[in-house]
């Protein structure tokens, strides 16, 4: 089964466990500044929103890369940066409509979510299930189920 990260902002408390887990997985340190998932706090709306790469099927970043440093991980569908190939030209950061590929001046390469090879640390660390890793063909299933439950009002009587 192909899986996707699925984000439900309504459940996010803004604790940043995901950012720490991501940075720990990729750098060995707890370091939100190196996290590939970011939580945004829309303070005066009372909303927190985790955001990261959605792994586009037709990936702008991959198509824009002049040196073919972005490859598809066949097992997960993740678009993965090949550090050995990346020249740090940043064209992919321009191409990505969502801003989820970013340059790191420490490594001289770009970085983006790679789904941790199929076991995303952010989803594992999230205490409220605001981030889950689920069947990519059915990310709407839970929401459908909730609405389905409301639909047949006769059954609840």
């Amino acid at each position, binding site marked *: 089964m192909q899986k996707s990260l699925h984000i439900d902002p309504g459940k996010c408390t803004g604790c940043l466990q995901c950012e*720490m887990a991501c940075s720990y997985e990729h750098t060995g340190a707890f370091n939100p*500044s190196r996290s590939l998932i970011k939580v945004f706090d829309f303070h005066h709306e009372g909303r927190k929103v985790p955001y990261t790469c959605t792994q586009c099927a037709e990936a702008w970043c991959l198509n824009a890369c002049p040196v073919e440093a972005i490859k598809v991980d066949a097992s997960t569908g993740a678009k993965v940066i090949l550090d050995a190939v990346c020249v740090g030209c940043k064209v992919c950061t321009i191409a990505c409509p969502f801003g989820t590929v970013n340059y790191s001046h420490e490594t001289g390469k770009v970085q983006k979510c790679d789904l941790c090879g199929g076991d995303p640390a952010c989803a594992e660390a999230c205490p409220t299930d605001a981030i889950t890793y689920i069947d990519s063909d059915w990310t709407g299933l839970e929401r459908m189920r909730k609405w389905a439950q409301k639909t047949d009002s006769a059954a609840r009587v």
Partner: protein
Amino acid sequence: MAWTRKILRVNLTQGSCVSEALNMEWAAQYLGQRGLASRYLVSEIDPKVDPLSPENKIIYATGPLTGTMASTGGRYSVVTKGPLTGVIACSNSGGFFGAELKFAGWDMIIVEGKAPTPVYLHIENERAELLPADDLWGTTVWSTEATLKKRHQDPLLRVSSIGRAGENQVLFAAIVNDLHRAAGRSGVGAVMGSKNLKAIAVRGTRGVGNIADAKAFMAAATAGKKVLAENAVTGQGLPTYGTQVLMNVINEMGALPTRNHRDVEFEGARKISAEAMHEKRASDGRAHLVTNQACFGCTIACGRISRIDETHFSVETKPEYWGANGGLEYEAAWALGSANGVDDLEALQFANLLCNEDGMDPISFGATVGAVMELYDLGILSKEEIGLEAPFGSAEALCRLAEMTARGEGFGKILGQGSKRVCAKYGKPELSMTVKGQEFPAYDGRALQGMGLAYATSNRGACHLRGYMVSSEVFGIPVKTDPRETAGKPEMLKAFQDATAVVDSSGLCVFTTFAWTMNDIQPQIQAACEGEWSQESLLQMGERIWNLERDFNLAAGITGKDDTLPPRLLNEPCKTGGSKGMVAEIGKMLPEYYSLRGWTPDGVPTAATRSRLGL
């Protein structure tokens, strides 16, 4: 390791920022944050120093677990000599600032001297510099944070600052980070103000990577999170209702101090409770509470995000307050509400917003308003003197006094001196509901005997966070004790105080202890920090910290006679409810407490005790 092993020493008089190695011998004895910063403070300042003079120092300290994946591992403490109390001040804050300081590579910042003109400290990893803050002086915490993010073109900057209350040296001024998390108590904000230090802005990209045994740490942290999630208080009660879950519970016990402790039950408690925050308002059909929010790394998420009623008199012409914002915690709701007899939830939220915006401790502010209202009720303070009518229950007076105090206007300047000084000034010192100059929090020391002793003996003046006996006397954690009973309370309190000192020195939040015991905490510290950290050594460290603070306070001039409660709590029995007829029986408990502590009958640690603890 978990420590960065680096201290930033900032001398405001000289304008210097210097990196120093952390004293690892002390780290092994005091761990971090509260304990370690206290060790530095007592070795560097004269206990008799005027807290608001350049000779006082102020320390911002993280713990070894700050900035790690341990749940709640984002705390920092501000340690200094407190102007409200004249004893050691140690105020603990969550939010995101503490972790950011650690990510920048610093265990703590020691600030000394006084800047000739207003400055702020800007830290970007190892680079630290003092920059002019003349344009920030006179502005609020909220405005300061926004300005600095813009100035440094850095939306990820974390800021800890004072508002106008700290600048004006309101004696209960707070230091506020991340808009509404505060090192709230004992007037630490006034110390910052006295030094012309407006703010500390930090950006850290180094991270915390030096965990002693990373694999063991991740296992211990994960196990700890599971315990928090499965516990009814930390897994359900606190996320859903916040600390406000207490309002109705404490009121129903007859333990909710009301109208400057004249009463112990508040008829309006339900209207200012967690439950009320969840209900839809008649005015706009929306609930006061928007959502809960976590501090850094916290899997409990007890924080409140509220939206004030736009039609309320306090904000109807002030749209800048209409958005979602930091909401009422239990202590604030009590102090701004019950302590003054005010049952208007929206008025409480407005006063709470002002406390965050201009950096004031809502507990001491609210409790001082309670004292002012009693003086008004007795005819000692007049409408002319205050500038407005201030009867118990007046939401208008509460809101106006909050503005006046935060901005240093008129009677606000007097109110900003705190309850002890206000009551003394008007010839009624006995009406000040304080211990060592600091106002009580939200539990009546008559109704909960153990809490009464906790207040009397707290090293930072009246405080619920130095030994939270409510946990046992109300919730039965770790065991249920009868709140009316004095027997056994000294021993339990000592254990609570010592264990709390450990938590406060680690980088973790004390709220974890609703679910966690040392069995959960010790493995996380042990895995993160090099060296041997057994439960026994940790608890002895807690005791060492307690005695270190006590020694400082004694040298600062307090005596065992200060370990007491106001006459009202000792002599005027609770009038109603489950606590009817009770007074605080400190005399029954204090000698035993001193003895258990290894102190003389006058409350002084003996030479044997000092030697046993390595002091």
